[in-house]
Every structure is written in C-alpha cells, then in structure tokens.
C-alpha cells in the first residue's frame, strides 16, 4: 500500500418534506403562533412534544392541551464546539426540558455563557425565533428564566383556540446534509489513477476468467478478490441503447434527442452506460462499433467523466445472432456446459 489513499469530498443531501398529520401539525402550527401544545395520554398525563399515539399502549391520541413556554431542566450536557446545523453557532447546552404542564421532556438547546450557568432543575423559557414557519426550530432555544413564574402556574388556555383558528401546518421541511471524505477502495483507486492517463482498467476473475469494468476488486460471480488488472482498449460495441426525447432538469448539456447506450469494451465481459454522439440518434444500432471521445489532455482528471461520449468508428457492426449471449465471452459460456 505504498500509494496514498485517494480521497474526495462527498456530500449527501436529502431535501425531505414530511407530512405532519393532525397532532404533529397542530404542535408545529402552535410554534408558529408562539403557543406550545401537548397531547393527553391514555393515563391522563400530558406528552410534549406530542405524538399521535401513546408509546406505552399504542392507543390513538388527539386531545390537545396547551402547556407553558417555561419549564425546568431535567438533565443537560455542555456543547463546547457547536457543529454544523445545530441551533447555535456559539457554545451552548443540550438539555431535556419538562415544560410546565407536561409530564414528558423535550430535547433542545439552552443558551448560556458556560456550563457553570447550567444546573439540573433550573427554570428556563423558550426564546422564539423572529421568523417562524411551523418548525421545531421556531424555538431558537431556551434561556434561563428565574422570573418565569412558578412551575404550577396555569398555562393560558387561549392558545388552543389560536391554533385552531390558524392556517394549519401540513408539512415540514427537514433537509439533511452529511459530509464525507469518500475513499474508493483498491480496485476503483487503480481504475481512477489509470483513467487520468486515458487508460481503462478492468479486473479479471481468477475463477471464471471474466473481465469486469470498472474493477471493484472482487469478482461479483465467484466472490473472490481479483488480483489481475487488465488494460482494455477504448473501443467496443453497443449492446443496447435508449433514446431520450425529454430534457432532464440540471443537465442542460444534454440536448434531446440523445442516446444512452450500454457499451461493451473489446475484451470485457460486462458493459457500462455511456452517451453516444457523433451520429443521429435514429441511426444508432445494436452491434454498432464505437470508440471513446476523451476530454482534452489538459482537462483529464481521476474520473470516468474523462470520456465525454462514445462515437461510431465506421467499422462493420458486430454481428449479433444469438441475443442470449450478447456481451458474453467464451469464458462466460464455458461454465454453462458443466
């Protein structure tokens, strides 16, 4: 392992929008209106934040009750180095908070200057975000509130009416974003290093003799590590293809109609997908011989995108008479006799 590990930033993002239903939706509507709602459980206690079922006996719950925007810290921990996407970008405490009028706790942030200002049992109050949309982060966080009133102070009862009269929240945006340092493994690393020099590598199954491209370091049929990398030419044929006649959002570089094809390189046992250009889409045929069209040399990188498209060579088509065996080598079919 003398060569350095290849690494590339990889960001995973999901733009989730979730439907909320009548109970979670009412809670989030309340936050937008600066009202906190819980739900009464089967045993008469109040759960906040509310769920539409009782976690103890699964009975459906729908009796919403207002709880106070104040409460007490049941447990806490100090977060000295806030991480991306957390409620505050300066150090803060995480806490489980039992709001006055509720019997369960909620997890949220408490904004204080240091851990010495935190204590179990301390009174806190919600700090509302200026602009609210019906989201758990309408609560910017909690702040200490010695003057927040006694625990048993009755919550207002007008809040429920406010929520009932308001436009209900029916969905909530909860995007997630996770960053990685992607490392491709041994087989793909060899492939990526070679393709920077316009060389295409595959790996050869030591059991069946089949050649797989791109190489994965493992034979997907025999379940063994592959040891022999083989260099393949940048020529092959079209095993199958598709003509796309509608545009794709985010790919302005593709002008319909365009052709995506399954390309089998000379000497390979499997194909991979590639664009076909330099020919009218209507003239593309199964069996057509093609050659890679590479990026200019000064733009080459460790990426399969170095091949911009595949274009016809003008050679006679590969004759395909036995469609059961398209794309399969002698090594593939040899095993079938046994």
């Amino acid at each position, binding site marked *: 392992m003398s060569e350095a590990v290849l690494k590339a930033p990889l960001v995973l993002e999901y733009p989730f929008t*979730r439907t909320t239903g009548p109970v979670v939706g009412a809670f989030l509507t309340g936050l937008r209106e600066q009202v906190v709602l819980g739900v009464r459980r089967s045993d008469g206690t109040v759960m906040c934040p509310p769920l539409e079922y009782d976690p103890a006996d699964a009975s459906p719950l729908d009796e919403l009750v207002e709880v106070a925007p104040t409460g007490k810290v049941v447990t806490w921990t*100090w977060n000295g180095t806030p991480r991306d996407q957390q409620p505050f970008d300066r150090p803060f405490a995480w806490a489980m908070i039992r709001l006055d009028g509720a019997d369960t706790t909620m997890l949220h942030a408490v904004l204080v200057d240091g851990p010495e200002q935190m204590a179990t049992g301390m009174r806190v109050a919600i700090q509302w975000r200026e602009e609210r949309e019906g989201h758990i982060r309408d609560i910017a966080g909690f702040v200490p509130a010695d003057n927040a009133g006694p625990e048993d102070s009755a919550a207002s009862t007008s809040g429920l009416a406010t929520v009932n009269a308001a436009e209900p929240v029916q969905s909530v945006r909860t995007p997630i974003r996770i960053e990685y340092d992607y490392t491709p493994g041994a087989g793909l690393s060899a492939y990526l290093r070679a393709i920077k020099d316009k060389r295409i590598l595959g790996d050869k199954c030591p059991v069946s003799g089949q050649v797989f491209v791109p190489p994965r370091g493992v034979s997907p049929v025999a379940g063994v590590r592959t040891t022999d990398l083989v260099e393949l030419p940048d020529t092959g044929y079209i095993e199958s293809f598709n003509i796309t006649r509608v545009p794709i959002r985010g790919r302005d570089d593709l002008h319909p109609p365009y052709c995506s094809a399954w390309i089998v390189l000379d000497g390979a046992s499997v194909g991979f997908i590639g664009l076909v250009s330099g020919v009218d889409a209507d003239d593309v045929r199964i069996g057509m011989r093609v050659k890679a069209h590479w990026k200019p040399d000064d733009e080459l990188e460790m990426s399969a995108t170095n091949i911009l498209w595949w274009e016809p060579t003008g050679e006679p088509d590969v004759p395909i008479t036995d469609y059961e065996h398209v794309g399969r080598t002698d090594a593939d079919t040899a095993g079938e006799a046994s």
Partner: protein
Amino acid sequence: MRDIAVVAFTQRQEASIPHESEVEFMVPLMDEAKKTVGLTQQDMGFTCSGSSDFLAGQAFSFVMTIDGTGPVPPISESHVEMDGAWALYEAWVKLQIGDIDTAFVYSYGRSSPGSLRDVLATQMDPYYVAPLWPDAFAVEALRARLLLESGKVDERRLAEIASRSRTHAVDNPHAVRRTPKSVDDILAEPFAADPLRPSDLPASADGGAVLILAAGDRARELCDRPVWIRGIDHRIDAHSLGVRDLTRVESAEIAAHHAGVADDRIDFAELHAPFTTSEALLVDALGLGGDTVINPSGGALAAHTMMASGLIRIGEAATRIADGQGDRAVAHASSGPCLQQNLVCVLEGE
C-alpha cells in the same frame, strides 16, 4: 424448537480501513469462515447481512457486498439495515422453519469516511429532534447526568468499567483501544461530553464480521464444539427519548427474561455497550452477578464497529465457549439512541 449453533466466526476491526472498500475487506473474512467449516456459498441454506449505507455515504454498498459472497448461481438472501445481530436473528428464524440446515450471516461498517456521531443524528425523531442535529455523544451525556444525579451510578463506577475494558482489550488483537489506564487516571480526564470522559466513549472502528449457523447434527459435523443458541429475544423501547425512563433499559430486561439469562449461571457476558453508562445499565437489566466476567474482549468501548458490534459480541462469546473458556454465556446487541433496541442471546457449549 430446533437446536441452532454458531459453528464459525471471523472478524476484522481497525481504527480505519482506508485502502479497501467494504466488499474488498469482507471477502477474506467470508472465505476464512467458510473454509473453517469446509462449506461453499452454494452450501448455505440462507444468507443474511446487516449494514447501513449512511455510514460511508456509499449508496447500495450492501448490494456490492453481496458480490463478495459469490452469489452466482443466485442465492437465497436478505439484508437488514441493522446490526448484524438482527441478521443473525432472521437467519435463526429461517433455520427454525426447518427447511435449511445452514445459514451465512455477516455485517460490516465503515464509518471513518464520515463523522459517526453526527451521522447518528439522522436516526432521531425526524420532526422534533433530528433537525437540531444533537450528536450521539451529547445524547448519551444527557442520560449519563440523569444516572449520576439519581445515584444509580457514580463516576468511579463508570471509570472502573472503562479501565477494565482497556485491560481486557490488551489481549484482543481486534480491539483498537487497548492501552491500560487506571481508574484514577481516567477520572482525571477532562470531559468530552460533560459528564462523560473520553474513556467513557466508544473507540470507533471500521470492520466487519462473519458468522455461520448450523442446525442439529449438521452443526456437530461441521465443528468440534458447536455453541448452541439456547435462547434469543429482542425488544424495543419507545423512539422518543422524552417518554422513556432513561435510568433503566426495560427492553433489555424483557429480552433477557425471554432468552432465559437467569435460568443458570453465566460464565461471561459480551455486552454491546458503546458507553460505560450503557454497560452499567445493561448489567442491571440482564441481572448479571459478580461472578460473571463482563466483556472479556474489551467490548464495544474498545472497538465499536457500527452495524457489526452486536454480531461481534455473539461471535466473541461463541469463540470463547468453543475454546473452552466457559460453558454458558450471554451475548447482547443494541441499536438506536440510548440502547433503544436490545437483543439478548444465551449461548452454551456442547
């Protein structure tokens, strides 16, 4: 009920495995396990795996890893987005049905490409908690303060657990945190997630494990000392942390009861306890006495391979019984924040 035994186990855990993809590092483990009992993939009645694509951000990594089994001609196969212990459970159920005699189980996790403690925020409630991105250490720290302030444990007890894990791990080549440290030195560590110290937290690892199950006489043919699964059960607590009593682990208590932990003495226990607080709670929940050796491998504190740590606990316990280091053991796996879900498995030697 059919008698089902563990007949082979292999594992690999390292602080990070940057040079190999998941399937590349799993293939040698799969081969080694199969060779131990002289079986090929085509001899396996069923194959079940556990992993999560979120760890490395590699979409469909579990599909590529199936390539490593040698799945041609097509095999009977399933996957769970859970620790491999639950893949083992599915295989055990399949064996109980009675039409197969062997099953191949594996799981793996490579969390080093991402930040595991942040990735784990995505398993929290998606409406109320995940949008705040509480990291996994902070969430356990909230439980830890509850335990300390309720008097259920004290800091010294947690430090003793951490110190013992390190001592046990010295002899475990698969452990990644294996330098001994005294209780007093651990207590002198500054907080990592107040009130948890670095030694209270799991030593994250990349890796995987492979385990082969066989039924009845088939198990006796395949190895000298089959390790029988005498009881296995798994239960789950509520998802919302705010409705749970975090000073106990009710789902583990029930699973231990149904698995029959208390029916006889337990020589040792392999507990999937990522935190010292987890172990303190689990020892109580499983009703383990002072004569039971806890985590002879060092446990998940010494090497925590997400998605494989639970299966590794079962494999570690089975290997020790097969080697004659004990006759009856309990292995435990967990999943979710604050030990939300728990699997308990009682193992006995032939």
